[in-house]
């Protein structure tokens, strides 16, 4: 059982769906959504939220700074 739980908050309307965060995620949490945002991009979202450890790797490589990362200890 993991001792930390993380979560990311993606600004859907600003995400351009480049997918760089998907390859940066060590626990394969992020996928591109099937829906599109106002610009027509498939935005990034948490497909597998239980696995998130709040490492902030996705937010570090995000070119548009749309990811905010939160973490709690359990």
């Amino acid at each position, binding site marked *: 059982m993991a001792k930390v739980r993380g*979560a990311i908050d993606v600004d859907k309307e600003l995400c*351009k769906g*480049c997918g*760089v965060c998907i*390859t*940066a995620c060590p626990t394969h949490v992020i996928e591109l959504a099937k829906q599109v945002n106002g610009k027509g991009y498939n935005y990034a979202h948490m497909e597998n939220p239980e696995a998130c450890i709040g490492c902030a790797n996705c937010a570090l*490589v995000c*070119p548009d700074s749309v990811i905010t*990362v939160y*973490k709690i200890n359990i």
Partner: protein
Amino acid sequence: MATIEIKDIIKKENLVYGKTKILTDNIMHYCPGCSHGVTHKIVAEVIEELGIQDKTIGVSPVGCSVLAYNYLDIDWQQAAHGRAPALATATKRLMPDHYVFTYQGDGDLASIGAAEILHACNRGENITVIFVNNAIYGMTGGQMAPTTLLGMATATSPYGREVALHGYPLKITELIALLPGVAYVTRQSVQTPAAVRKAKKAIKKGFENQAKKIGTSFIEIVSTCSSGWKLSPVDSNRWMEEHMFKFYPLGDLKDSEKANEEDYKKYIE
């Protein structure tokens, strides 16, 4: 054990990492996955960490990053094509207590602005140069740049760059490392979290060198241009790792602080 819902985690007190306040809320005009976005972000974070927002003046180039003044909440100037180091020289000499940096692409710095950058570095101006090298002219539609790799197809070299026709790619960073005026020359990239952290450290050092007045700091960021390279953002990162890093190896090329220390040791021994 009670299940934890995402809304319980997403609270202000649990914040780990978010957008820095130096970055404005304007939507970046860069293509999806562009390295400029990450580079802007780490420059903004460094400015925030050093607490120099009101003392920093950026000089933006001509190229994709010409509109950088829309995204970083600091003072900016916009230079003619390639002339950012000349403008930064004047700014720094008039306001020596300010932090002045230029933000240039390879088409701006290595081609039309090659003379300006070489002489600014040779004079050892106390400025920081951030050089984003994606081996192509991105804004104008993917033409061949001086830094384009051999064999790389672009709009103006559709059969790949050839030595006989186009000459060799220019390693401008290696040239600059030879000049005595420069204090710090390094080559970094921003495609992985580890690389972003290293690049941020390098940029921070570049800004700190301005306070020490030890010469020019030159930071090259090897980056991607997914639109110009006609690849997806993730594929262009992979292509960069496979091809660009062979010709443009990462790491410090010159760190005069260390060199000075060794020289100093020579005298006391």
